């Protein structure tokens, strides 16, 4: 074929004359020439247009034709169907050339009721391309469609359905949304019509979901997944996926059907599916759609279905390793399309560490593939994989390849994916390297992605800064390299951080001072420099090289090159200098007094100059010092909520407090782990954890005993629901990971995303309303035992909507119990009340520590006091896979120390638990016994309660 061969440079053989060639097989039999169906006039017209030498000639020819058609349509003589078709087709051609068409619609609508197929077809084509949704003609069109749908002629029905799908307007939905489901599930409907009907309905559902009535047909649609005709299954799967997203409960049965369908496809021999095998890949489109459908749901609960799905996914991963059955790119594309979709599903489930790691390895191979497309997709897919706790470490091993891609890839799309992936795989261990590489790349990066890279660098630098001098350097570098792309938010942020951290202020002042020495520096640097020197210039004024006068002259040398807002900022800096450095007061007053300031045309500048000059002249030193005092630290975001929290804490909470305490202690008494070798922790240890959590460091300790705050956002005293069933299982799953679904029932889904750093954390709680009805009085309340800060959420949650709540967490001291999240709301008249444990566990505040074998055993010996060690021997609950165990230990938060333990089968870890008051070093050792299917876990820390708690938490994981 002339169009085959992806990059064939040879021009199309035929030239711009009307094609003189024998008609092909399907070409309208009667017609000569090239215009199908014998529309010779059309072919001639198209040739004429192609022969036009200039745009003007083309327009002239078109206008002539339009005049001709108009006169034909308006003429006295009634046109026959053929002529109408020809002229409508010409109009269509003119329209597709990019010219406006304002007539001919009526003639096209007339063609719809023709009983000649080609005329009808052209009529429908014109309507789908040219009639916009609010056209007056819609009623006429709908009538014609209705007739064709009722005709029982599958070809006509097909045309009508295509037209509805192509226009897809609300009017169409109003007219046909009730009818199409009937056609779809009727027993006597032809397969091809079913296919069209399914996709047509999908289109209408997308534009007007409210108009598509759910009903009996929905369950029958699900069963189309079992249909014998693969084309029907393909079309139905698209429809079901979209419907299932909005109504997951109603389409739940589709999961097992989809899994068994998928299983039959992936295990079939390449010839089984005949025409649905595409370049030796069995039904790739259907496979991808089924995998997509499964991404609407969590992993199947039924173990048999789940096992079958896992088998399917494994088979797909295995097939990727097999030699290709064909050298054609179509074969590998189709095969890999299925593979990538399977990986998406694996990532979506985020529950099978084994599959996740395999997926990561597979993508790792693609990263070095010679095909650009595969490298691109591997980078993209890995990005999502990096956010899974199980595969984050595996993704990180590819850092060098990704950095290399950033440097060598020739395609900006691919480089952008590499930037995304570096951002996603960044954590404390590699932040410096990644930020440095991104800065490096920024110097040559494409303009289109610079702003994004700037933001990413700024975020990473802040998020993973251990040493804030590094942060300051990084941001100043950003301004130097890509100043134009540094938005306000970025330079505001650096100032906020410098003001809030007094350990970095002197360094920042020195660094901006040096940066400002450059003869040409970016205006953003002048802003940051001006602000910081105005606040902290005194910290470097002792050095004669940066004396007050030098600082001032340096800034003022930039003044005239800057825009008005920057100059205004510099004026504020000058008045701050008057306070910091009285010795240069007169110099500054001279500047303020100059005509260019006092009589500046800009009102803002003029007013500042006048006011600052007066201020410096008449105010006493004391007043100056007060007015121009150093900026107070910036409040972190939730501060206003914190204040609210303090205020609301009043009488009435005490009773609740007692209740909680009772519940907690009973819970604790019953929590003796059956497998635990050690005794339950002493109540005092627990109370220590609870009691050592004052609300804030500045607030006075609450007067009531303990420091639990109950129901801080609503004044009504409310009973607490018992823990929701199954929430303990979910809770255990979150010990080694930070994101996922915490709770789900028929009404509500609670998802979590959280991040922890040292003794601080932030958790995003997503409440999803799974129903189509509003939740009223929606009040989620956290029962605090750590220092938690939250914002109340909107009390109404619309059907299908999701609200988000942010919880800021501070670990004040080590603790045992997880906070409880209580949720109350009204759903359709009934009051709902449920509680789940929030998975904030002590190990979240772990920082991994790397150490040598010698160090490890030395510390191990130091912690030999029997109270410091806790040991647990227990049976394995999951398959004993070394890789998974490693991933879990890392997910738990400690470093995994390789080659430390003399027995390579054992796992050894070390880390530090950060609390506000102390840091507790922890060592752990896990000894698997494969034969007995047992583990022995030993924890040694400097604090008994901590050893105990960590041991409990980790034992549950294997």
């Amino acid at each position: 074929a002339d169009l085959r061969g992806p990059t064939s440079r040879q021009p199309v053989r035929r030239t711009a004359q009307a094609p003189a060639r024998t008609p092909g097989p399907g070409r309208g039999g009667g017609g000569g020439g090239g215009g199908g169906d014998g529309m010779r006039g059309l072919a001639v017209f198209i040739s004429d247009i192609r022969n036009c030498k200039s745009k003007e000639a083309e327009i002239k020819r078109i206008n002539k034709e339009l005049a001709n058609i108009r006169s034909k349509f308006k003429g006295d003589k009634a046109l026959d169907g053929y002529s109408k078709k020809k002229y409508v087709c010409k109009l269509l051609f003119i329209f597709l050339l990019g010219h406006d068409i304002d007539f001919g619609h009526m003639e096209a609508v007339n063609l719809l009721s023709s009983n000649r197929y080609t005329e009808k077809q052209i009529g429908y084509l014109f309507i789908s391309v040219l009639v916009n949704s609010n056209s007056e003609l819609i009623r006429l069109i709908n009538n014609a469609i209705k007739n064709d749908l009722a005709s029982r002629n599958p070809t006509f029905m097909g045309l009508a359905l295509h037209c509805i799908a192509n226009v897809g307007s609300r009017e169409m939905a109003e007219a046909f949304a009730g009818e199409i489901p009937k056609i779809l599930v009727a027993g006597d409907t032809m397969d091809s019509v079913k296919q069209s009907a399914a996709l047509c309905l999908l289109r209408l559902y997308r534009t007007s979901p409210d108009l598509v009535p759910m009903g009996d047909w929905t369950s029958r649609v699900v069963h189309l997944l079992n249909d014998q005709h693969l084309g029907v299954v393909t079309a139905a799967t698209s429809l079901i996926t979209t419907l299932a997203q909005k109504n997951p409960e109603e389409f739940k049965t589709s999961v097992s059907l989809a899994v068994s369908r998928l299983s039959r496809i992936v295990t079939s021999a390449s010839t089984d599916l005949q025409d649905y095998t595409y370049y030796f890949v069995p039904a790739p489109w259907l496979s991808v759609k089924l995998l997509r459908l499964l991404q609407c749901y969590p992993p199947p609960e039924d173990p048999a279905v789940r096992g079958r799905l896992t088998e399917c996914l494994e088979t797909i991963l295995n097939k990727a390793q097999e030699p290709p059955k064909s050298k054609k790119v179509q074969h590998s594309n189709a095969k890999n399309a299925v593979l990538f979709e399977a990986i998406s599903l694996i990532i979506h489930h985020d529950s099978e560490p084994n599959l996740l790691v395999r997926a990561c390895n597979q993508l790792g191979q693609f990263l070095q593939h010679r095909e650009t497309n595969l490298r691109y997709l591997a980078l993209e897919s890995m990005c999502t994989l990096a956010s899974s706790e199980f595969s984050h470490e595996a993704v990180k091993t590819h850092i060098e390849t990704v950095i290399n891609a950033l440097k060598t890839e020739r395609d900006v799309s691919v480089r952008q994916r590499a930037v995304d992936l570096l951002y996603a795989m960044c954590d404390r261990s590699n932040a410096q390297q990644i930020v440095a590489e991104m800065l490096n790349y920024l110097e040559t990066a494409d303009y289109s992605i610079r702003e994004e890279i700037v933001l990413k660098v700024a975020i990473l630098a802040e998020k993973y800064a251990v040493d804030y001098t590094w942060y300051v350097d990084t941001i100043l570098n950003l301004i130097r390299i890509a100043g134009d792309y540094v938005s306000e938010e970025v330079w505001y942020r650096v100032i906020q951080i410098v003001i809030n951290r007094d350990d970095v202020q002197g360094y920042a002042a020195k660094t901006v001072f040096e940066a400002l020495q450059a003869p040409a520096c970016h205006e953003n640097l002048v802003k940051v420099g001006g602000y910081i020197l105005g606040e902290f210039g005194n910290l470097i004024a002792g050095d004669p090289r940066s004396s007050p006068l030098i600082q001032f002259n340096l800034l003022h040398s930039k003044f005239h090159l800057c825009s008005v807002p920057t100059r205004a900022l510099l004026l504020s800096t000058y008045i701050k200098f008057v306070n910091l450095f009285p010795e240069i007061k007169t110099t500054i007053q001279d500047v303020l007094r100059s005509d260019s300031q006092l009589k500046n045309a800009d009102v803002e500048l003029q007013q500042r100059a006048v006011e600052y000059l007066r201020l410096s002249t008449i105010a006493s030193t004391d007043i100056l010092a007060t007015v121009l005092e150093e900026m107070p630290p910036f409040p972190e975001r939730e501060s206003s909520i914190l204040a609210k929290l303090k205020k609301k804490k009043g009488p009435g909470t005490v009773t609740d407090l007692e209740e909680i305490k009772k519940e907690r202690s009973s819970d604790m008494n019953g929590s003796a782990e059956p497998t635990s070798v050690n005794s339950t922790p002493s109540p005092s240890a627990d109370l220590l954890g609870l009691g050592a959590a004052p609300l804030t460091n500045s607030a006075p300790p609450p007067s009531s005993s303990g420091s639990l705050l109950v129901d801080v956002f609503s004044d009504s005293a409310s009973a607490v629901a018992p823990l929701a069933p199954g929430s303990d299982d979910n809770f255990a799953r979150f010990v080694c990971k930070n994101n996922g679904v915490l709770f789900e029932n028929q009404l509500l889904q609670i998802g979590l995303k959280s991040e922890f750093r040292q003794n601080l954390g932030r958790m995003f709680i997503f409440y999803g309303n799974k129903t189509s009805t509003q939740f009223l009085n929606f009040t989620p309340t956290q029962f605090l035992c750590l220092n938690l800060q939250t914002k109340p959420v909107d009390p109404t949650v619309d059907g299908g909507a999701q609200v988000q709540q942010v919880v800021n967490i501070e670990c004040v001291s080590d603790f045992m119990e997880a906070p409880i999240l209580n949720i109350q709301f009204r759903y359709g008249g009934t009051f709902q009340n449920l509680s789940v444990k929030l998975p904030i566990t002590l190990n979240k505040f772990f920082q991994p520590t790397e150490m040598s074998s010698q160090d490890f055993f030395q510390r191990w010996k130091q912690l030999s006091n029997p109270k410091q060690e806790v040991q647990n021997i227990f049976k394995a609950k999951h398959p004993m896979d070394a890789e998974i165990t490693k991933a879990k230990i890392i997910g738990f938060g400690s470093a995994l120390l390789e080659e430390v333990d003399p027995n390579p089968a054992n796992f050894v870890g070390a880390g530090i638990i950060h609390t506000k008051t102390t840091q507790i070093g922890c060592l752990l050792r896990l000894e698997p016994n494969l034969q007995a299917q047992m583990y022995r876990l030993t924890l040694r820390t400097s604090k008994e309660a901590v050893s105990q708690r960590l041991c409990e938490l980790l034992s549950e994981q294997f």
Partner: protein
Amino acid sequence: MLHILLAPAAYQQIPARGYGDLLIYRQSCSCLALIQLCRRAQVSKAQPFKIHFILLFSRQGKLRLQKWYTTLPDKEKKKIIREIVQIILSRNQKTSSFVDWKDLKLVYKRYASLYFCCAIEDQDNELLTLEVVHRYVELLDRYFGNVCELDIIFNFEKAYFILDEFIIGGEVQETSKRSAVKAIEDSDMLQETVEEYMNKPAF
């Protein structure tokens, strides 16, 4: 704090305003603001496969076919076409077949003198979209017998019909080549028989 100042009378009418730069976003001091600015935040998955539009154009930038599966005003469509044709023609040979464009992703491939370009959602399956294009070319080929650009120019309506048999509302309807081609050939047959019948001499 500035009440001690006697501002010149001329400035009295100026509405009160704060020295914004001194305050620097006092309300929202958080890295989150930056993160929210970052365009590529994770989007939820599981959008079903959907093509937003398909464009066919020549190496000279001449549009040969346009199919829209989302409703847009004509003016907007023209703007999009211009923009996309320019983006794709400016890319060189060795690059990937994927381009980020606004919230969507363009997947394109060149066959001889024609570019086939589909706009899909960011999370869609790119490789499979390439094969959608290929399957469409195969269908054209099967119908026209060795298709070339001129076939599509002179029989543009057929190119649209074939596309409609293959894709509806942006979703692949029939992946079997045989079924799709058969549907079109059937309708050609139908046209012949009906037309022959109607054109029969009256006597």
